[in-house]
């Protein structure tokens, strides 16, 4: 006869005797004895060669069934009676809760072969059978957990310091649409998780009493217990308390794994509740348990019905926006991980992507660490409002706990989060010297960067020091926070930055930091390249034509920007700019010479001849107009004047409308615009003409009945015609070079290239910036009178300026004068040379015959002043 599995594995002869099955003597036993015996038996099964076989699972079921019998008071009493044992010898019940639900819940778990979906449903039914109202179930079971450990239950909301938004009943029902029964079941499941923890701890180091559906799952459960002993040590720092381990806290991670192992069915509400529990704890876990949670989550999503999964994802997307960083990051991480799944239904996959795009907006990389990357993105997303509203100390602490957890899971990703948040606060946050919250946050973040040990951190601090757009006040908060943590070497110059430091002083601190942290410094040969480029440029001629003078200005401004790069510590970029030299502007000048004047007509206009031949033949005229409308091309003056005349005054209306269409399509041509100017005096003042003029002029006009309309319309067309003619004519280089000069000024202000801002506006910005720099640097106020005089002078220049080129020149020369004052304040011994530069500038401007010549002179002066500032004067 073949042996039964329990006989094969445990040597039990009588599988019907629960005492024998559990290896217990037939005697009065307590619950804990039963549970311990169960644990020992399960361990023995796990160690058996047949553990991974169906027979092994069958034995596990038998063990749990036996334990369930002994844990049931009525069955146990019956067994006592049968063995002749006195009932008064029975030990007190282990759980002394006022409710009978606690021990019975444990029994249900055991009877169901571990906690799983069947156990959950039975538990809910049991609760109702006991007459426990739905609302009391959580508290009752929570009491079971708390009392069993001698500690009062701690409400979830108190633990977190907040009430999770998704726990709102109305919100849940709106989103998930579950019924009351499902809610009760879900609550029961959550509490069951707590029970499970109790049970699993009672089982000691053994694997949980489950029947895993997969070998992998078994391993994960086994590792889970191991992970309980891997929690990171608590941080003793009072300013940065690590989350306190709460032994009575249910193991929500195990709950999630258990739900996965049970193999369904499950609902979104339950998963959300378990995730909510995990959210409060996951930051304390190390890599392996986190991986298991993530893995279980993905599996659980596959177990969910599609509609439930969609509801889950949508709710999780909302939770990424949660104020609690633990919640936000967990959900961001899990959804990011889910996003790389390839087997999700399309609708669900789309929902996941939409959730991520609308929140953390990260790309999928399919990397193993997708959860961590997503969590890190969620962390940054969680801090998105800090630039306008810095966090309180408590909020910052919660955020930093999660940040530290991410750093523990992946030091590289964690460090990036810290650096990016730090950079965000320095770049865009409130002035740290005016906002204590911002200052405190910067200091706490700064504790987590170490420029001396980490080149990335060093690079960040140096780049912030180099970024002209960042105020010295802001960056000084960071530098000084680092300095307080990093003791200077004996005799070494301390790396500290005054909030009122001048740009040069800041550059000095940057150079010192660069040398100290990275061992880098500007090389003499690099500066030599720049010096030589400046010398060569200044020795050359400015040129005679406006284009040549503007080209000279662009080169001067480019070299001045190279000097600025030296000041801000980017010697490599400085050399690049210096070596660029005149190549770009020479190309523009060469293009101008080759293009020559625009061609207005090729002298042969067959279309015009055919149209004139058509005379009153309407179909032919319409056909010819249609030909132009379908194949727009460059038209000569005769054609242009014909179609414009038809568009404005043509007859019949069909011809007029068709011609209107043609003119609108060709209205970027000089011939057509000129045709409009020629015909406008006799054009009817009707809406179609208004529309045509607006289209051609690319502007909006006043109402056509306004008495000023004829003047405004003509002015608009004239403006546009001049613009078009210039763009294609001998003056085209002027506009191209003006745009290049704008770019140089934009760079000087730290703007991205190609912003399209007018040079005059940028020059005004430069004036403002330099005034601010003088006022910041000149603490004694000696320069205020000078600044006042320069600004008055600027106002006078502006009042004399006609057009944007002159307006630019007005601001440009003022900015140059202010730059000289800045450098004189920084290097008083250089004042005579600076005065000489300004004197030469004044003379050059007086002699100049055009504003372009003046612009070139001012730009050369500015370059010389910059060269003095960074010590590369020729």
């Amino acid at each position, binding site marked *: 006869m073949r042996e039964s599995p329990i006989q094969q594995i445990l040597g039990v002869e009588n599988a019907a005797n629960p005492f024998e099955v559990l290896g217990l003597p037939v005697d009065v036993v307590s619950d804990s004895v039963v549970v311990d015996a169960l644990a020992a038996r399960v361990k023995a099964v796990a160690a058996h060669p047949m553990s991974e076989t169906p027979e092994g699972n069958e034995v596990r079921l038998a063990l749990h069934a036996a334990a369930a019998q002994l844990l049931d008071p009525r069955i146990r009493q019956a067994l006592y009676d049968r063995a002749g044992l006195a009932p008064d010898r029975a030990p007190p019940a282990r759980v002394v809760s006022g409710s009978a639900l606690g021990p019975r819940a444990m029994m249900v778990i055991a009877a169901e072969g571990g906690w799983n979906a069947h156990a959950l449903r039975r538990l809910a039914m049991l609760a109702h059978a006991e007459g426990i109202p739905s609302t009391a179930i959580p508290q009752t079971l929570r009491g079971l957990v708390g009392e069993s450990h001698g500690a009062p239950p701690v409400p979830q909301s108190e633990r977190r310091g907040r009430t999770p938004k998704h726990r709102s009943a109305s919100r849940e029902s709106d989103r998930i649409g579950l019924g009351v029964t499902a809610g009760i079941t879900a609550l029961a499941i959550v509490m069951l998780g707590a029970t499970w923890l109790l049970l699993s701890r009672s089982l000691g180091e053994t694997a949980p009493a489950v029947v895993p559906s997969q070998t992998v799952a078994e391993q994960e459960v086994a590792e889970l217990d191991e992970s309980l002993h891997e929690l990171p040590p608590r941080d003793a720092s009072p300013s940065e308390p690590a989350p306190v381990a709460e032994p009575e806290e249910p193991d929500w991670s195990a709950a999630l794994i258990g739900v996965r192992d049970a193999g369904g069915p499950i609902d979104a509400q339950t998963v959300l509740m378990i995730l909510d529990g995990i959210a409060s704890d996951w930051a304390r876990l190390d890599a392996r348990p986190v991986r298991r949670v993530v893995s279980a989550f993905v599996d659980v999503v596959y177990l969910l019905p599609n509609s439930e999964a969609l509801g889950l994802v949508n709710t999780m997307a909302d939770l990424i926006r949660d104020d609690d960083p633990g919640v936000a990051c967990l959900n961001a991480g899990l959804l990011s991980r889910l996003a790389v799944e390839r087997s999700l239904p399309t609708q669900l996959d789309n929902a996941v992507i939409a959730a991520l795009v609308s929140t953390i907006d990260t790309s999928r990389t399919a990397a193993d660490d997708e959860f961590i990357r997503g969590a890190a993105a969620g962390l940054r997303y969680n801090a998105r409002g800090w630039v306008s509203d810095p966090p309180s100390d408590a909020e910052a602490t919660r955020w930093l706990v999660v940040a530290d957890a991410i750093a523990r899971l992946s030091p590289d990703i964690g460090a990036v989060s810290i650096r990016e948040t730090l950079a965000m606060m320095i770049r865009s946050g409130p002035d740290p010297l005016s906002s204590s919250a911002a200052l405190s946050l910067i200091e706490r973040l700064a504790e987590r960067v170490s420029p001396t040990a980490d080149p990335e951190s060093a690079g960040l601090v140096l780049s912030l020091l180099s970024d002209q757009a960042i105020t010295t006040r802001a960056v000084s908060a960071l530098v000084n926070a680092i300095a307080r943590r990093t003791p200077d070497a004996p005799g070494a110059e301390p790396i500290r930055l005054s909030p009122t430091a001048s740009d040069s002083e800041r550059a000095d601190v940057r150079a010192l930091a660069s040398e100290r942290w990275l061992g880098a410094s500007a090389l003499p040969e690099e500066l030599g390249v720049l010096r030589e480029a400046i010398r060569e440029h200044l020795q050359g001629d400015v040129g005679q034509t406006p284009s040549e003078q503007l080209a000279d200005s662009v080169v001067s401004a480019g070299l001045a920007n190279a000097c600025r790069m030296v000041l801000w510590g980017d010697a490599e970029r400085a050399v690049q700019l210096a070596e660029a030299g005149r190549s770009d502007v020479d190309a523009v000048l060469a293009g101008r010479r080759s293009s020559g004047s625009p061609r207005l007509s090729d002298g042969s206009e067959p279309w015009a001849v055919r149209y004139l031949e058509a005379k009153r033949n309407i179909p032919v005229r319409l056909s010819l107009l249609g030909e132009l409308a379908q194949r727009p091309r460059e038209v000569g003056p005769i054609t242009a004047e014909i179609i414009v005349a038809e568009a404005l005054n043509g007859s019949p209306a069909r011809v007029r409308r068709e011609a209107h269409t043609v003119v609108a399509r060709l209205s970027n041509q000089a011939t057509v615009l000129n045709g409009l100017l020629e015909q406008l005096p006799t054009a009817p003042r009707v809406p179609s003409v208004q529309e045509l003029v607006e289209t051609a002029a690319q502007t909006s006009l006043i109402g056509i009945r306004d008495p000023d309309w004829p003047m405004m319309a003509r002015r608009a067309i004239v403006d546009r015609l001049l613009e078009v003619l210039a763009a294609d004519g001998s003056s085209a280089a002027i506009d191209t070079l003006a745009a290049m000069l704008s770019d140089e000024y934009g760079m000087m202000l730290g703007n991205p290239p190609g912003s399209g801002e007018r040079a005059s506006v940028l020059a005004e910005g430069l004036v403002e910036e330099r005034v601010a720099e003088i006022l910041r640097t000149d603490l004694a106020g000696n320069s205020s009178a000078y600044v006042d005089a320069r600004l008055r002078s600027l106002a006078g220049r502006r009042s004399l300026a006609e057009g944007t080129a002159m307006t630019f020149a007005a601001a440009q020369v003022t900015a140059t004068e202010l730059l000289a004052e800045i450098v004189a304040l920084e290097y008083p011994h250089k004042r005579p040379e600076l005065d000489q530069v300004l004197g030469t500038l004044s003379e050059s*401007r007086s002699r100049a015959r055009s504003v372009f010549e003046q612009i070139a002179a001012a730009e050369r002066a500015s370059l010389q002043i910059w060269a003095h500032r960074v010590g590369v004067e020729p």
Partner: protein
Amino acid sequence: MKTLAAYVLMLVVVLAGGVGAQTPEERFEDRLSTLTPSNPAAYYLLAEEVAYAASTPGELDLARHLYVLAFVLSDRDPGVPWLRPSSCVALAALEVDPARRRWLYAVAALIDDRYTGLAAEADHLAEVPAPTRLAFAEFLGLTRAGRGALARQRLELPGMDELIDAISSAVVGNRSVPSINRMRSEAGVWPCKQCSNARSVPDPSSPETERVLCPNCRGNPGPLLDTDDLVAYTALEAIVLRADGRTWSAEHAMLRTGPLRDPDLGQVPRMFAIDPTRSVYNSGQWVTPDPDT
């Protein structure tokens, strides 16, 4: 119309110039000899009297001289802060050249913010009524189109000659506006005498069925203009219409890229070629004051 009034005033004073044999200094010698650098306001008040009664260019020059001295001397007299900017404004009022007038207003604004904006408003074209300026611009466009009759009508509007005179005098650096007389002449030539601006005429070889471009106007009535001409005349329209000029090249075409002169207090005497150190009138000439007196 201040510009026109100034021209008329100039004409009157030129015509009256030869009437009297006395120089302005001789006429006002008694008053001039009482002026002392310690009382710069007296220079200003006398300058006002001279300017008000001026009937010769010499008298206007004397008024300017006194205003400039009032301007310079008041620098040493902070008790009369109004004197310096007021002197500038008075000098500007006597100016015919709009550029010089605007510069003087800008200098006044350097001293006193209340004068800010005067320079920008001192655009001589702004004083010309908009319909006149529009008519001139249309005249240019109609002439380019060979629509001579309509173009000539525009020229007959009141104030057109004065406007053309003012525009013609505009010179920036070594550049000036294109010839208006050329366009006046062209307006008299067109429309096309052969096709009447129909652009085409019957083909002599088959006059019943075929048409060819008019051999006189080549199908394009109006003067022959190359691109540079078109740019120049369009820019002239832009000047008259006071268009914005959307690009630097457009501004260049509109002669708005002349040198930007800095408003500079120290440049005022130099502008009028007056030696500010000679501030005392003695024995018929301006001399340096005796330091002992």
